[in-house]
Every structure is written in structure tokens, then in C-alpha cells.
């Protein structure tokens, strides 16, 4: 079985639900934003997640990991999406860990993994071109754009690849050799452009990665984005249903209007299809199945398009309130709009699906 949760996964989902509702609710996002702060994960919250074991989920047991797998991680990210919680679950606990795991085992590598698991470092993650590396592989020169969580993070784990080789490098973001420029997007999250000025990479912070690392990391990023989009969609859907059941117009609940009922029924159907396709993609990644690229491209297309549909319906069916900043619907909508572009657009993934299907 692969499309339903095990008992452990169900318990994990429950504790995630509880954690985000209590510690990182939507109101917290709003408070930070209203104070003109950047909505990033702070060290305190990260430590709480570390204490819950979430930073060690993907580590092998040999280095004290929980080996919980990507489906479990996906459900955490989904729950985080529902409260607009900013977390390093995707960047630090998943992509960074996966990147390191794509490198041959070594004490230095294991040490870094342990530090992530223990929460002593909170890295941002990026994929970039191999051309950033000097020819001796010992320094970085050039820039990376729109790096998520790069302002809140203390280090960067980057997978730098071209057609022939891939390397994972770890650099200190507080070094004077790297310039961080804040980038403010409509979702109010933590992004930055990074500029490296002949930054020397510590010898034990550079690793050769296996051949398929870049493709796999792109897939993991796309699947995690799809998982967050699923959470956002589910939440907007639920809030819209609640509004339809409560709001009255023309002497009746607006949820009793058949045209709106049919639209929500269709959205529900799409949400259910997305759930199946997403869980399958996460499972495919977890099990390193042959059809993993196809499964992930499918998930990202469907997540993008379902989130757009439901985001639009959410605003439209909330009517005038939907376009005010007072309701949260707009916050979800803006996050959806940004994530559509993260780790591949619908057009890119649809083209990829077509190619892999022999079309």
C-alpha cells in the first residue's frame, strides 16, 4: 500500500496539525507581516520542530535518523501550508538532507547531516549551475536568484551541476564574501538574491554528488511544492465551503445556489484527484521508482492548476470580502501564485509529462 497513511503517518499528521495550529497559526503570519518583518522561520520554532524529530525524518538510521520517508515529510509540508507557516522543512530538512545523501558517505557529510538534525544549523537550499564553481572547485563566484529562506538561514547548501557532474557545497551565509539582497515577493516570505565574490569553500564542505542528483533534487523540490500547494488548496476550499454555509444573500445561504454547488463539487473532485497523484509522486520518490519523473511532473501540474482553480473560486465566492486584506483568503492566494513558479511551471511539467509518455 502506498496511497494511504500508515498508523505512524497518521499520528505524525495529527501532531503536525496540532503544532501548526498552536505555534504557527495564520495569525502569526499576519502579525509578522503587519510589523513589516519578513515571514521566515525563527530559531525558536525550528528548535520546536527539531524536538519533534522533523529535522531527522529523512536521515538513515545509521546516523540516528528516523527514516520516515518523503510521504511523511510531504504531509508535514501540507499541514504547514494550511496555516501559512514558514518552515525550513522543505529547504533544510528535505532538500539539503537529500542533497547530502546524494553524496558518498563521509565523516564530514555525516557531521553536517547530524547538525541539521540537531538544529545547530538551519541551511537554505539552492540548485545552481556548475559554472559558479571555479575550475579548481575551491571557490564560488557569481549569483543565485530567488533563494528561498536565504535571509533566515545561516548557511547555504547548494547543488551545482552541469550535464557531466554535480557537486554539493556548503557555505556560510554570514561570511563577508557573500552578499544577500532581500527580495520581497507578494507572499511576503523570505527570499534573497545571493552574490558570491570569489568565496572560498572549506575543504570538508564540498562533496561530489551522484549522477542523477540534480534531476532528483529538482523532483523533490517540485513534489514538496506540490505538497504545500495541496495544503493551501485544501484550506482555501474548506474556508470557502464554510463561508458558503454561513453567508446569506437573497434570503438564503449562498451555498444553496446550485451554480455554486456544482462549481465546488468540481473543485472537490479535482482536489481528490490531486491528493491521489501527490501521494503517488511522494511514494515514487521514496521508493525511487522508475516512473518518478513522470509521477512528479504530473503532481506539479495538477497541484498548480488545482490551486489556481480553488484560489480563484475562493476569492470570487467570498465576493467583496475576498479581495480585502481583512480575510486570509488573499494571503493563501498570493502564496499559491508564487508557488506556481517554484520548481517548474505547469507548462514545463506538462511538456515533460508529454515527453516521458512518448507523446
Amino acid at each position, binding site marked *: 500500500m502506498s496511497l494511504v497513511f500508515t498508523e505512524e503517518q497518521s499520528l505524525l499528521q495529527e501532531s503536525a496539525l496540532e503544532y501548526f495550529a498552536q505555534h504557527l497559526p495564520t495569525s502569526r503570519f499576519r502579525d509578522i507581516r503587519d510589523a513589516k518583518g519578513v515571514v521566515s522561520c525563527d530559531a525558536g520554532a525550528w528548535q520546536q520542530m527539531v524536538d519533534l524529530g522533523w529535522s531527522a525524518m529523512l536521515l538513515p538510521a545509521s546516523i540516528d535518523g528516523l527514516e520516515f520517508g518523503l510521504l511523511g515529510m510531504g504531509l508535514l509540508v501540507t499541514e504547514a501550508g494550511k496555516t501559512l507557516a514558514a518552515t525550513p522543512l522543505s529547504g533544510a530538512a528535505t532538500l539539503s538532507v537529500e542533497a547530502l545523501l546524494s553524496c558518498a558517505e563521509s565523516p564530514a557529510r555525516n557531521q553536517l547531516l547530524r547538525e541539521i538534525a540537531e538544529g545547530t544549523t538551519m541551511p537554505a537550499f539552492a540548485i545552481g549551475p556548475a559554472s559558479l564553481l571555479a575550475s579548481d572547485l575551491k571557490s564560488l563566484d557569481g549569483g543565485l536568484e530567488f533563494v528561498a529562506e536565504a535571509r533566515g538561514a545561516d548557511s547555504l547548501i547548494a547543488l551545482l551541476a552541469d550535464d557531466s557532474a554535480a557537486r554539493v557545497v556548503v557555505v556560510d551565509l554570514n561570511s563577508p564574501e557573500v552578499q544577500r539582497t532581500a527580495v520581497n515577493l507578494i507572499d511576503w516570505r523570505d527570499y534573497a538574491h545571493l552574490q558570491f565574490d570569489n568565496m572560498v569553500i572549506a575543504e570538508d564542505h564540498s562533496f561530489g554528488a551522484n549522477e542523477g542528483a540534480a534531476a532528483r533534487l529538482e523532483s523533490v523540490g517540485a513534489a514538496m511544492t506540490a505538497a504545500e500547494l495541496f495544503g493551501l488548496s485544501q484550506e482555501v476550499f474548506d474556508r470557502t465551503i464554510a463561508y458558503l454555509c454561513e453567508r446569506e444573500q437573497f434570503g438564503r445561504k449562498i*451555498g*444553496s445556489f446550485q451554480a455554486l*454547488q456544482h462549481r*465546488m*463539487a468540481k473543485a472537490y473532485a479535482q482536489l481528490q*484527484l490531486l491528493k491521489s*497523484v501527490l501521494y503517488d509522486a511522494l511514494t515514487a520518490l521514496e521508493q525511487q521508482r522508475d516512473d518518478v519523473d513522470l509521477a512528479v511532473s*504530473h503532481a506539479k*501540474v*495538477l497541484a498548480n492548476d488545482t490551486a489556481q482553480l480553488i484560489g480563484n473560486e475562493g476569492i470570487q465566492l467570498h465576493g467583496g470580502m475576498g479581495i480585502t486584506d481583512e480575510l486570509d483568503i488573499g494571503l493563501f492566494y498570493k502564496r499559491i501564485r508564487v508557488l506556481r513558479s517554484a520548481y517548474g511551471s505547469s507548462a514545463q511539467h506538462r511538456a515533460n509529462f508529454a515527453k516521458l509518455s512518448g507523446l
Partner: protein
Amino acid sequence: MTDLEQFRRATRAWLLENCPPSQRTTVAKQDVVWPGRNQTFPSEDARLWFERMRDKGWTCPTFPAEYGGGGLDEAQEKVLREEMQDLGCRPPVIDQGISMLGPALLEFGNEAQKAYHIPKIVRGELRWCQGYSEPGAGSDLASLQTKCEPFDDHFLVNGSKIWTSYGVESDWIFCLVRTSNEGAKQAGISFLLIDMESPGVKAESIDLISGESEFAQVFFDNVKVPKENLVGEINQGWAVAKGLLKHERKMMAELGTGFAGGDLSLAKIAEQQFGRDAAGQIDQPEIRLAIADYEMNMRAIALTGQRSHEEAQAGQMDRNVPLIMKYVGTTAVQTRDELAMDIQGYRSAGWHDENFSVSELRTARDLLFNKALTIAGGTNEIQLNIIAKRALGLPDAPAPDKEER
């Protein structure tokens, strides 16, 4: 080895030994085995396969063995289905007695009814059809008017049923009839079994846009029906019907996805039509993307069916998910049919004659025939109403008469 694994091995061995190779290929319409008083077989192998399965009770694998059924539990039945699928075994017989009436009788019938009818269903001695819809009623099933009056030793039935699949070819019909006009319209309905050889029963086929006439209108003119043919209590037929509708909808959804998995791949016909470009892609971007969308949709539907099944097995069944299957499945099939025609142009618009290949002719026929999928078994509009109401809990409209099929 668990019992179930043992069962799987034994089943596979039996199937390999007993299913003739000719019965392990895709089944065309003319190859289907139907039951009935005057049963005929498309081939000797088909007869052999039917009789072997019948004698094992596997025409109705989950029906109790005491009535001749296979007596399998759900897990075993799934194993049998999987093994048959894996080996490509055809269904030995197709009948609405097996798929619909049988389960309803087992749930709502009395002992005499079960003892009499279930063995006949298992053995394919009678072919059953369904009498629900009536002219003018459509989706509003409960407004049915076929009159059923009780007399001392019989009921007298007058009226007409429409959209009865294979009404002309069937032996018996299970019907919803009106036994009272008092109270809510659902409250006066009864569930009745009628032998179509009874005097006063007449079935006429309905011509369809696809050129087929699978459906019939059935007329009842002073038909006497023995009182023992009433299933459940009088005026309580609506509950039986609702139980039965679930089976019908499941069948429609499967029918949909089943059809779509047909032998004509869209990629193949598009390749024939447009060729491939230097990059190996089908050389018509709009069509290529449309096929990709269709394939994604079918993949999503299949994965959702699988998820729902796994959830049920794990005891985490979400009862709302199956509600979407008929809607998404039938819509997908129609999208496929339209795409297939758009790709092939005139060549797929043939009605008959030797200018066209069999598969070209099938394209248009499928399109026209499958228009029924979004209408029969509860229109897709009714399905969306049901999703809105049951799965989403959206409030009822303040309409004068709210009960919907």
C-alpha cells in the same frame, strides 16, 4: 504462506487450466455471453468457460454457497478479480441479475425469494433488466407513476418504463412501482419482480443516435403479478432502490474507465496522423498537449480508484471520494472520444461501409454511444448535486420539492 496466498495460487492454477486461450483476449461486443431462457453462445469456448465458472459459483463469487454462489469473502474476491485481470480472462457472463438485483435480493429479499432467484442468477438461467425510469420522469425518479394495485392474490400493474437496458432481450424485470399516492412521493413506491412472459408485458427498442438500440421502453397493460414477487415491505421500495443505485453508479464509473482503456491509443493515432518532429514529438503541439492532459486525467482517476480501494482495505474509507468517480470517469471518456475524432478528421466520421477500417468506424460509434455515460445511471448534474450535498454538506435550496435521485 497465508491462506490468502494459498488461495491465490490455487485460483491461478485453476484459471490457467480452465480458461480457454480464446477467452483470454479483449472482449468485443459480439463476444459477450449473456444469460437467459434461450441462452446462446458466441463460441464453444465461451460456453465451456461459462459453464466451468458457473459450476464453481464464480459467476457470482461473493454470493453465499448455499444458493450456489462462490461463497468468497471480499479479500478472496479481490484476488480472483486480480488474477482474472492479470491473465486477461473475460467475464464468463454479464447480467444485471448478477451485478444489481442479486446483491439487493440478498440484502432485502425474503428466504423464499433468495432460494428461488439467486441460484437461477448464479446459473444464468434468466436474464434480468431494470425498470426504474419512466417517460417524463428522467432524473426525478421518485415521481414515477406506474400503478400497482393489490388484489387478493396478485398485484395488477399498469404503466410504462423507459431506458431499460436490454429490455427486449431480457426474461425478467425488477421494477419500481407506485403502490400509494399518499405522503411524500418516495413513500408510496414498492419494488417488484415481473416475469416478462406475463400477459400484458411488451418491450420496444429505442433507436439511439449511435445507431444502436440497447435500450427499450417496456409497457405494462393489466399485468398480473403474484404477491410473492414483492421485495421488502409494500411502500418501502425506495430503500431497496437506493441500495441498488450504488451498484449501478459503481458500474457506470467502471464502464467509463474501462472503455477508455480501449485498444486505440490516442498517441498512436496522433502519430499516424501527424508524424513526429525532429525531437521525436507528435508534430501537432495542441493535440500533443491535449493528449497529455487526457492521460494525466486518466492516471489521476486510476490512482484515485486505487487510493479509495487501499483506504477501504486499511479501514480508513472516505465515503465521499467514490462519489466523484462517475463524474470524472464519464467526462474523461467523452474527452477522449472527441480528441480521437479531432485527430482523425473525416476518416473517423464514417457511419458504415468498406471505405473505413473497423477501428475508424468505432471512433464515431464510441463517441455517440458514450454520450449516454453522462446521462444514464443518474445524470452528471445529479452527481454534482449529490457531491455538493453529501460530501460538502452544502445547504439545500429552498425548492418546493427537494428529494433527488
